[in-house]
């Protein structure tokens, strides 16, 4: 009798503990969206603000402040592209939409697709810096040897902390994951789809 009681208690406990295990496994995955939300709220990792064009139009320009915005570009290892800003820095007023341009060239002999990832420093400024138009919103295909000039339209929220007078926007170009995948398939002898 005692043994049966213990066995059913064991079974119940094991099911509960396996439930906790499954829960914690899902929690590991839940950390991914949580982390992204956390980054957006705090500007951690230079995640930029998300004002739309319509919201940006409503902001009042603050002509009393001047913010220097610097541009930094980089290309990740393995992507044979050139990528540079057409202006290294601009001085802007908060609340004014500004247009800047970048130039990219595919030096490879094959057509490739790239994806630019932005980041803003310092972190405290990141969420007050919004891009209303950016080539980084979509993947960028470039034919072999092609050069393209692409625009970025950005606005700085006048609520930007008082101690910030200089903001750096940096882009890194990566090979888009899909093309990387296809290439390794070709290398691995898999059928080219």
């Amino acid at each position: 009798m005692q043994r049966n009681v213990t066995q059913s208690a064991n079974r119940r406990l094991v099911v509960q503990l396996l439930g906790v295990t499954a829960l914690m496994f899902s929690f590991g995955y839940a950390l991914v969206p949580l982390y992204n939300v956390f980054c957006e709220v705090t500007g951690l990792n230079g995640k930029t603000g998300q004002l739309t064009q319509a919201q940006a139009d409503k902001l009042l320009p603050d002509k009393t402040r001047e913010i220097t915005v610097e541009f930094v570009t980089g290309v990740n290892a393995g992507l044979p592209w050139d990528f540079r800003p057409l202006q290294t820095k601009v001085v802007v007023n908060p609340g004014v939409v500004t247009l800047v341009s970048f130039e990219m060239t595919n030096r490879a002999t094959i057509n490739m697709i790239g994806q630019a990832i932005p980041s803003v420093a310092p972190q405290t400024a990141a969420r007050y810096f919004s891009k209303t138009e950016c080539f980084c919103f979509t993947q960028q295909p470039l034919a072999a040897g092609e050069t393209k000039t692409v625009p970025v339209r950005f606005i700085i929220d006048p609520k930007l902390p008082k101690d910030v007078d200089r903001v750096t926007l940096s882009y890194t170009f990566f090979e888009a994951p899909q093309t990387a995948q296809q290439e390794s398939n070709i290398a691995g002898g898999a059928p080219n789809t």
Partner: protein
Amino acid sequence: MSQAATHHDTHHEAHHATGITRWLTTTNHKDIGTMYLVFSLIMFFIGGSMAMIIRLELFQPGLQFVNPQFFNSMTTMHALVMIFGAVMPAWTGFANWLVPLMIGAPDMALPRLNNWSFWILPFAFTLLLGTLFMPGGAPAGGWTMYPPLVLQTGEAFPFLIFAVHFMGASSIAGAINIIATVFNMRAPGMTLMKLPLFVWTWIITAFLLIASIPVLAGAVTMLLTDKFFGTSFFNAAGGGDPVMFQHIFWFFGHPEVYILILPAFGIASAIIPTFARKPLFGYSSMVYAAASIAFLSFIVWAHHMFTVGMPLAGELFFMYATVLIAVPTGVKVFNWVATMWQGSMTFETPMLFAIAFVVLFTIGGFSGLMLGVTPVDFQYHDTYFVVAHFHYVLVTGAVYALIAGTYFWLPKWTGHMYDEKLGKLHFWLSTISVNVLFFPQHFLGLAGMPRRIPDYAVQFADWNMVSSIGGFVFGASQLLFVWGIVKCARGGEKATAQVWEGAHGLEWTVPSPAPYHTFSEPPDASTIEGGMR
């Protein structure tokens, strides 16, 4: 019912499997405990040989013996083997042997699961150690498996991931078993606040395992799908973030360090009262301290990554939470010292190792405090200071407690007293050499020597040579440990049931060696009370 149980046992005994089948099919907690302990001892020596290769290469500046890739795979594999192969299975082995004996249970709650959780391990480590012979070599990106570096691992990569999955499954199964055993199998009258501290610390460890290992399983699964299935959890090009891996990993990783050390607290709390011939000072505060350490371990993970870039508020939070852990840990150290205070102490080998554990673990705790302070961590981060810190808490902490526990319960396991002279020689050689080995690494780290490098600037040469000499002596001393165990298993002075004059607890009420089946009938209340004192 009890008659039926006895009948069942005799029946079982009659068909007792022999040879290798016995070990493959056994569901006896003592057999499984022995297998865990032997397995972890083998892994201790495999991981130790890797450490010897590391210290050999670092004996002098320049590259003498191994190439940098192999050196890096040695540091990576040394950590994985020692953490998942030596220390964790050793604790599960201790738990298998001792938890049922300590709580007056006939066996673990889930004996078949118990067999299974052990036998996963040889497969896990075949996968892991097999990578040493693969083209491209074993994983070399560090045991922390940070992307994108770890994604450059060659053919060994999926083997690494699945080995981690297997080790995790084994630990979780073991943890579930221990929780079920303690919750459902305690002898009547064995209330929670009468449990020996080793059982308490293991219960808390088991909950840490269940809460943290699945997170690691998730993290490595994300690595796997990033590498082979085109997901972008940690791939910036696809919108992922490599820093996120560090957060997920250390959410597992910090509880993991307490998984490695909490049972050691339990061992020290068993040995010190025995040889001080006094009851443990502050039993309930020990329980609450262990529980608060476990809770805090979940909210301090980012102190491993102060330098990746974090808001100031984050750095302050993680610094304060980290430093707060010193409070419950201090309570424990205080209680051990207070237990010894005015006790009639004798210094048999287990006690020597236990006292060395308290002293040397505390040194590791203090360097941990230093590392927990954000502004100075920027200097210490990724230097040999970190290496010195975690070897003080793991080698002279966890491993010393394992050795102390082995000498302490060896007479109960084998029925013979170990060779005391040999034990003391092992102690003194180990304790002197381990300090020669790790103490200079503090200096190296403060002077700026980075960890995980096969070659270094010449100003680090002297202390590296000293450290290596200490390493070789420490490594060789452990052969004395094995010799002592083998000698004790083969024969020696007969051990009494109580073994130690000051020993209290249910495991000392059964004969030595402990019979194959114990507590088929639960012990009566007076035995439990007498055992607790």
